């Protein structure tokens, strides 16, 4: 019996070590840290770019939310969001639209609750928070959450794969990431590609994750894809009941800054840093930027400064602003007030730099529009930095 036990334990350990490198694949020896951000500085005399557009002009849905963008193979831009009659409605679907020849295609339904229920063989309440990852082999991996019961605290993460640019999707699989009935794991914000240790090592991504069941805290989802097969595990950035929805900004392979949504009475954007490729993070500290318990998104600029989209208020989401930091997130100066309408909400920004050097940002506007802002670094440089101060003292 002892021999059987030892053999079984050995087989399980071998299985764990074979797939995940024994210590988990977040260790630097298996994945070589964050992929270095490829940023080309603006050319001299480059004209400033500032464009705003509505992505889902003729969709006419009462509720749309949590938009994200992805640069597809070939350089086209794709946007996806979920929407329907209202936030927790079973009828909500995930929509996908691509930017072709300067115009957004009509939104295509890429995920329905019916498909999720059919594939998983169990009921769900509703779906939300979609995110797309473009693989180097041209396939698209969709990550999204579904609620089993209750509200977002009862959410679980699902994934599936498309090899034809989002028209057809593989069977939906559930990722088990939480010990208590797999409840309360949500994705939100830009995934960061990881440096593979070798050509045979597969592709890897670090996806911002958060939990909000009993505590509210930020986590990271580490994904490794080898021949279409996905291995997933997570790590924690901070515990407690204070911050969530991290926006990761890699500085180099080992260092990154995370900016966090606040759930405390501080009502500030929080900041944390890593120097070991995301394995350990400093204790989150409040910055001078206000946060009304709302999503944020940031990026690294070519001159080493950081740019952040945030709601410039401690109560409501009526103002959406851009801010700059020249000390890696420790202090911030307001750059530009994008939206300010006391009767409308602008929230959940998602910022991404595309290979043409432009900075694209999508966000929910007035609850039923998905708006995209396109800017370049020349436009940022032309702004009177620090003229506006953050709303909170």
């Amino acid at each position, binding site marked *: *019996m002892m021999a059987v036990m030892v053999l079984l334990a050995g087989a399980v350990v071998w299985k764990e070590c074979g797939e995940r490198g024994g210590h988990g694949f977040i260790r630097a020896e298996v994945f070589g840290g964050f992929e270095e951000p490829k940023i080309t500085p603006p050319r001299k005399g480059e004209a400033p770019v500032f464009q705003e557009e509505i992505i889902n002009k003729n969709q006419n849905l009462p509720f749309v939310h949590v938009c994200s963008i992805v640069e597809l193979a070939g350089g086209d831009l794709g946007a996806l969001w979920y929407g329907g009659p209202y936030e927790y409605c079973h009828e909500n679907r995930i929509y996908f639209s691509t930017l072709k020849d300067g115009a957004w295609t009509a939104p295509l339904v890429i995920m329905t609750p019916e498909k999720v229920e059919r594939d998983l063989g169990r009921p*769900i309440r509703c779906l939300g928070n979609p995110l797309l990852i473009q693989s180097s082999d041209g396939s698209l991996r969709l990550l999204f959450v579904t609620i089993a019961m209750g509200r977002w605290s009862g959410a679980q993460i699902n994934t599936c794969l498309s090899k034809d640019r989002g028209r057809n999707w593989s069977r939906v699989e559930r990722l088990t990431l939480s010990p208590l009935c797999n409840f309360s794991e949500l994705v939100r914000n830009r995934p960061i590609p990881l440096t593979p240790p070798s050509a045979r090592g597969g592709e890897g991504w670090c996806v911002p994750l958060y939990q909000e069941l009993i505590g509210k805290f930020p986590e990271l989802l580490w994904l490794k894809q080898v021949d279409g097969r996905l291995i997933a595990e997570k790590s924690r950035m901070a515990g407690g009941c204070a911050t969530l929805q991290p926006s990761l900004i890699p500085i180099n392979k080992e260092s990154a800054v995370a900016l966090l949504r606040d759930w405390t009475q501080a009502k500030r954007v929080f900041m944390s840093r890593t120097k070991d490729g995301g394995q350990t993070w400093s204790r989150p500290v409040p910055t001078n930027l206000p946060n009304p318990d709302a999503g944020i998104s940031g990026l690294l600029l070519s001159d080493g400064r950081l740019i952040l989209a945030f709601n410039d208020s401690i109560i409501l989401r009526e103002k959406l602003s851009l801010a700059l930091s020249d000390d890696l997130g420790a202090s911030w100066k307001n750059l530009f007030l994008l939206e300010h309408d006391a009767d409308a909400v602008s929230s959940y920004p998602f910022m991404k730099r595309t290979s043409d050097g432009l900075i694209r940002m999508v966000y929910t506007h007035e609850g039923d529009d998905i708006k995209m802002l396109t800017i370049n670094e020349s436009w940022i440089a032309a702004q009177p930095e620090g003229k506006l101060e953050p709303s909170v003292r």
Partner: protein
Amino acid sequence: MSLQTLHHLYAALAPWSALSLLLLGRGPYLSRVRIVGSLFLALFVLRIPIAGWTCFQWVMSLEPNPSFTLTALLAVALLQRVGRVQLFSPEDWKAAWFFGALASLILYPMGLGLTSMDPYVLGWRFVLPVAVAVVAIVLILRGNRFGLILLLPFIGFLLGLQESQNFWDAVIDPFYGGGAILIALGICWQGIRRRKSLKSL
């Protein structure tokens, strides 16, 4: 058989065993008709549709990964009840409850955010299988049959019977953990009362 069907069949074992035990009741005499009837009735109840989904599918949307430990303990309880044989001694049960209580006290508070350290991550590393194997070997050496039950998470994990790929889910789930804490507290409370009454004599 698809992997999903396998996951569903395995996940159905724990609720079916628990429901069968409930239907069998605690009466001293069990007729063969009662036994067979209870086992089939439990199966029937799990297949009753509610809002287009069977009771089992609703249960699975709540807990898709019942642990192999819980499933095995329910199977032992069911076999003992139906076969009127003692497979587990009170000491074996005690080990099961204290192991479950300890494991859930290690996993759940920290796993749900109490600290910056997340013990759930250990379920993807070699540490947890080695720790469980050591506990199982110690229990087997002491002649405790719960040690044999601890073989099953390893077998089930290797066969991929669960949707989860985290070894914690093979060992413990909130139902086993919660129940184990309550029963372990009860055992401790009884021990304290017994010691007090012995002192007063």
